[in-house]
């Protein structure tokens, strides 16, 4: 049986936190990529971004979100950044809680535009916790060889993790 799901790299944030997690030189030898994360933000915002190949252009997003009180949906066309949803926020959300998210990018090395999907939940023992789904399109034809995730400001806290997998179709 072929090995179709392979861990490419993993990182756990150490003491002091980290302002971004940057997977570089991603080999083009797989069919799809999958990133699984568990993140918590240190300051100011719950928002997390992800950029492909250090690009901040040509991202289009459609999302559904619920936060325990309200529901939201929307489309952002030709966005200047790619949303990676939300993470619990230090000082606001329950201590030591993290999000749980998976990003899947099929055909990341092709010469076509790149689609992706993101499924995410945050943990919070309070009235506000996020459930988030997003379909994304990056309208560039370059093969993806770099994925960078970052909070809007400040750091991911210690023990945040990110793991990148490569998936082969055979």
């Amino acid at each position, binding site marked *: 049986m072929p090995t179709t799901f392979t861990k490419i790299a993993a990182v756990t944030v150490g003491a002091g936190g980290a*302002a971004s997690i*940057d997977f570089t030189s991603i080999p083009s030898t797989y069919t799809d990529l999958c990133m699984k994360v568990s993140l918590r933000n240190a300051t100011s915002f719950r928002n997390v971004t992800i950029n492909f190949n*250090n690009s901040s252009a040509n991202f289009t997003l459609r999302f559904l979100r619920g936060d325990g009180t309200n529901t939201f949906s929307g489309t*952002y066309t030709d966005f200047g*950044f790619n949303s990676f949803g939300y993470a619990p926020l230090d000082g606001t959300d329950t201590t030591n809680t993290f999000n749980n998210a998976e990003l899947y990018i099929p055909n990341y090395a092709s010469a076509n535009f790149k689609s992706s999907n993101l499924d995410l939940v945050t943990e919070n023992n309070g009235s506000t916790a996020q459930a988030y789904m997003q379909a994304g399109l990056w309208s560039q034809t370059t093969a993806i060889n770099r994925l960078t995730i970052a909070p809007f400001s400040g750091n991911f806290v210690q023990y945040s993790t990110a793991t990148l997998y490569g998936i082969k179709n055979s």
Partner: protein
Amino acid sequence: MTKAIEINCETGQVIERALTALEIEANEAAAAVYLEQKAEADRLAAEKAATKEAVLAKLGLTADEVAALLG
């Protein structure tokens, strides 16, 4: 120091480096776009709520009474 963790997926090498000016600028720009959109969404929500209140006032009904009517 605000640091980035960089993982080279070919070599497995992990380094910690300072954020580049470009990365800091991108994060600030993303936050600014988000805040702008949130302000617009909040403005639209307030406008919608005000319109609803105005209609209810014309009808002489409270929101609770309308909810009771619609059951």
